[in-house]
């Protein structure tokens, strides 16, 4: 049986999922065709919000890692783990959609472009964080080690964000947050901006849900250990 809190959370999740679908539909059917790329550009309505959400997860990981390091509370550590998992999912979506877009545009599924490489590095770091978490014994030592790693990972994000400006490679330069304003059609621009906001909210919802699961998992493990003893 769902209690009132679970029901509320479920409704919020459904609402956010509907908003994601609406934003995709606007991007797919209402936004104009790109003069240069044709229909293939429409993948940006998923790709760009996913990329921003992956960065946002790194920012959340940074904040919760500092809180975990300061207070040593389990709940912050659980938030960190949930954030890394969600961050890894969105980084994988970014890489996957980028690859799908790259095939017709650049002629290859993958190239060692600066933005692609640095985004792949972020995915590896998220995976590394989760691997470190699972390979350390529970306790204050794990909380501290993972929190420190979380802080280090966030130092990599500015490099990924700036990579297209620093290295002039295949990936196009920033077309939204740039000097002189965005270079996109207003409908495309606002659909992408809305997509970023919606997906970030959706990721927060996912993180909170996953954190609750991790807390329950930890509680069950502790109780089963106590019963064995």
């Amino acid at each position: 049986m769902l209690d009132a809190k679970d029901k509320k959370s479920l409704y919020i999740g459904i609402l956010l999922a509907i908003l994601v679908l609406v934003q995709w539909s606007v991007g797919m059917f209402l936004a104009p065709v790109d003069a240069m790329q044709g229909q293939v550009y429409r993948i940006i309505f998923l790709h760009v919000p996913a990329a921003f959400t992956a960065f946002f997860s790194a920012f959340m990981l940074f904040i919760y890692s500092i809180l975990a390091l300061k207070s040593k509370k389990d709940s912050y550590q659980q938030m960190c783990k949930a954030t890394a998992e969600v961050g890894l999912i969105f980084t994988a979506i970014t890489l996957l959609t980028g690859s799908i877009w790259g095939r017709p545009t650049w002629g290859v599924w993958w190239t060692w472009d600066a933005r692609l490489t640095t985004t792949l590095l972020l995915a590896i770091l998220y995976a590394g964080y989760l691997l470190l978490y699972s390979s350390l014994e529970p306790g204050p030592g794990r909380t501290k080690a993972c929190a420190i790693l979380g802080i280090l990972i966030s130092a990599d994000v500015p490099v990924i964000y700036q990579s297209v400006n620093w290295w002039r490679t295949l990936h196009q330069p920033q077309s939204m947050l740039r000097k002189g304003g965005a270079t996109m059609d207003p409908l495309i621009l606002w659909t992408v901006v809305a997509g970023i906001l919606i997906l970030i909210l959706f990721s927060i919802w996912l993180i909170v849900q996953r954190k609750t699961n991790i807390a329950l998992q930890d509680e069950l493990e502790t109780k089963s250990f106590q019963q064995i003893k």
Partner: protein
Amino acid sequence: MKTPNAFAQFRILLANGIKSELSDLERLISPLLFALTILILFAFAVGEVEPDMRIKLFVAEVFLTTFLALQISFSRVFEPARTDKVFDLLRTYPVSYNAWFLAKYVLVVMLGLSVALPTIFIGAIMNGKALANVSIWGIIPVTVLAVAGLSALGVLLAAITMKAQSRQILYPLLYFPMTAPVLLSAIQVSVTYLEKGIFNSDSKAWFLLLASFDVIYVTLGVLLFSELVDDSQ
């Protein structure tokens, strides 16, 4: 007995580290042999190339050798501490954690430079034709900065992963991606300098990025190492 101050502790810990590194001749000449091996392997693998490509290869040789040598140094500085439980024992003493980190850090920097500097000079002799018009001394400060950044990050990560079960997989998985800003900026500055013979505005920007990441990693290392080893918290 009076506890020595943090600087004295740093000196003692560093001196002990150096002493154990210099304990046998093998350890002394191994960096030189390592550098030579990489340079010869590169020369065999690549063969004859254009002079401008030779400059890029020379830079790749220098930083790849340094990078790999540092991997050995990281495992060396923490391996005895891990296997002989010195790490756990040492943190029960009133040791300054900053002094402890800095001693490990300076030792790794020294080990890294003991490989990087011979590589630069031997590599310069081996690639003499391509580097004839440029002073090789210009890339030494870049190498020192690169080693400084890579070492701070490495020491901190080695301490983080010391007790992890899958340490051998985990360490490269975490270390390699995080070194990207330091390695890339060091390579960019070096290539630009060796091609043009001067530090232009482009290479100054890269130099700034390299120095910034050095500051970030050393500061984080000093701040976070104490958090990691302090058992009282």
